[in-house]
């Protein structure tokens, strides 16, 4: 089975985020990027799948600060190939990103495409579905487990999480896109000595992305633009209530009861 994991780097929340002069984007001067946590889980689930069922795992990522280290780390964890897409830094939102990935995926063999269900810098969870739509393949989001074998050739069984603790078991035909919520185990640690060793011997394959035209390829841009970006306003603080009587008094004062 050919497994492809789509990964990206997102702003690291360990730093205080600042809005730049335009008021529409994050200031990049001190911005540190880190791997999107959900993508790290997608990689882990892919590696577990590869270990139990065999196959080849390829990681695809957009060029970004420290992306090489992320890709070498993926190789140290057990990925077989890593691809870096350059020249696509200015893609707009997940529509643009999906178009870049679709272009790459069209040229790569793929049975199963895994990516994080969402990312810290969008939270819209649309990357997986748009990639699937562009490739015209099925997609399942909020997946917590993937298994091969039981339904037979060309199928996988996935667990999809719903709110309220409900889990659905779905059979899905390949190729397919899965948005991973959490892998079956925590993403594994890659020993630095292994990463450094791989850094000496392995190569990152580089592909030129379609860049800013990608949005158009997906059907006329991302369809949204950022109007304003601000830090959340600090609220007035919470009022601590001592008991039901106080709660009732507040509700009555608000005209709720």
């Amino acid at each position, binding site marked *: 089975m050919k497994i492809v994991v789509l990964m990206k780097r997102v702003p690291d929340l*360990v*730093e*205080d985020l600042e809005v730049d002069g335009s008021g529409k984007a994050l200031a990049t001067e*001190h911005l*540190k990027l*880190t791997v999107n946590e959900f993508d790290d889980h997608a990689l882990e689930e892919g590696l577990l799948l590869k270990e139990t069922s065999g196959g080849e795992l390829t990681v695809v990522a957009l060029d970004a600060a420290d992306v090489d280290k992320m890709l070498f780390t993926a190789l140290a964890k057990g990925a077989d190939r890593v691809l870096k897409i350059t020249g696509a830094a200015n893609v707009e939102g997940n529509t643009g990103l999906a178009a870049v990935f679709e272009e790459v995926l069209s040229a790569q063999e793929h049975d199963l495409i895994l990516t994080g269900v969402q990312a810290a810098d969008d939270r819209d969870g649309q990357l997986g579905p748009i990639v699937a739509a562009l490739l015209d393949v099925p997609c399942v989001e909020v997946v917590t487990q993937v298994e091969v074998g039981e339904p037979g050739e060309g199928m996988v069984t996935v667990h999809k999480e719903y709110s309220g603790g409900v889990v659905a078991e779905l059979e899905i035909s390949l190729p397919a896109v899965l948005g991973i919520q959490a892998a079956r185990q*925590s993403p*594994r*640690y890659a*020993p*630095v*000595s*292994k*990463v*450094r060793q791989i850094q000496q011997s392995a190569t990152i394959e580089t592909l030129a992305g379609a860049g800013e035209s990608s949005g158009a390829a997906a059907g006329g841009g991302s369809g949204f633009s950022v109007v304003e970006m601000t830090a959340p306003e600090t609220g007035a603080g919470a009022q601590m209530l001592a008991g039901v009587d106080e709660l009732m008094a507040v509700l009555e004062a608000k005209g709720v009861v």
Partner: protein
Amino acid sequence: MPERSTYKTTTARRAPRDEGFVQDEQVILEGVDISGQWNKMYEPREIVDYDLTHLEELTAIPGAESMGWCYQCAQCIPACPVDTAGGDYGPRKIFRRLQTGMDLFDHQDMWLCTSCQNCVRVCPKEVDMVEIMPAARAQAVLDGRNVPGELLEMFQNVAEYGNPMGESARRRTRWTRKAGVDIRLLPKNPGPVDVLWFVGDYYAFHNRGVDAAQAMARVFSRLGVDFGILGVDERTDGDSQRLAGEPGLFEEVAEHNLEQFGKYEFGKIVVSGPHAYNAIKNEYPRVSHGKTGGDTYPVEHYTQFLAQQVDALAPLLSGSFARKVTFHDPCYLGRHNGEYDAPRRLLEAVPGIEFVEMYRCKAQGYCCGGGGGGMWLDGFAAEHQMERLSENRVKEAVEVGAEVLAVCCPYEVSRFEDAVKSTDNDGKLEVLDIIEILDACMEPIGEGVA
């Protein structure tokens, strides 16, 4: 006496070692029949047949060979701080368990050693846990075999942020704002300095460590020390990562720090922590770095640096510190690097102080439990020991009647303050870095002085 024929049948038996009983033999010496049973003592015999697979797997790892040299004398057991804290531990026990089938890679014994070196001090066979454990752990980390999650989280933080707390590197200089004195940040102001002060993670980020860092800056300033710090470009010294089984990570941070050292002109490095001291003094020279290979820098622990200047320091100590104080020897300043006097000389210089030694001091000092990765294995250790090593130590400080437990390792203030609370000694024992005591005895300067 039996008939000769009986003997003949007996001697026709196969070798005794094969059948497990003793062979009779007919011997006639100078015409006298001295036939009889051989004494068992002269026969090769096998008492128990051990399967040494797991022991041999361990001793095959470069660095871990000496585990096989143990002859079970057990001198290490009373010397082992983990055993004393109810951990059922020590080299002798580990060897015996390996001999009787334990796979260290599946066992908690892999992670309990704090690399304090007290067992090495007493071992007649030179079984060196400080070499064995890091080598074995490195294999466990490389193979992903049962490494405690707490430890992996710390490794990940160091790999990503250069410090075990996972703090932003940009916040490394935040403590300087309230030090009350100017602190030269070498990346911004790179001229030559006498002293490059390697501040360390706990001094820079931990809320009690920050107190000591600010005290150090003020003491240096009053003494007129020309010093600078690496600020945001400093990374963890890497010693604990190396001992906990991540040599690659150690090399990565060591190379980074060596590269920073190479950028500036300075007379010597002064460090806050014994682990930084050990790393820069003994380990960094082995790290291949750039074109030149390992670099050796003159390095001193802050107690050594200040003890040399005690004549200049003493007149500045105008206040009195009239309290009963004991001192905890850090393993990596004392046992590992032989420095017992410098911290004591500083404490003796404090006016009004009443100094008392604990029973286990200097070369026999008891470990705080933070070394060898123990700092990040608190939950793991709690599952396998009756108490924390720091709790055991705090009880001793209370027993000798100390009001203050003085320390000079950045790990220890947090460890011992927690232990004071968990042993119900809150209010009875205060934990202070020596530099905090010195600072408190000097004329206040700056807004950071309480």
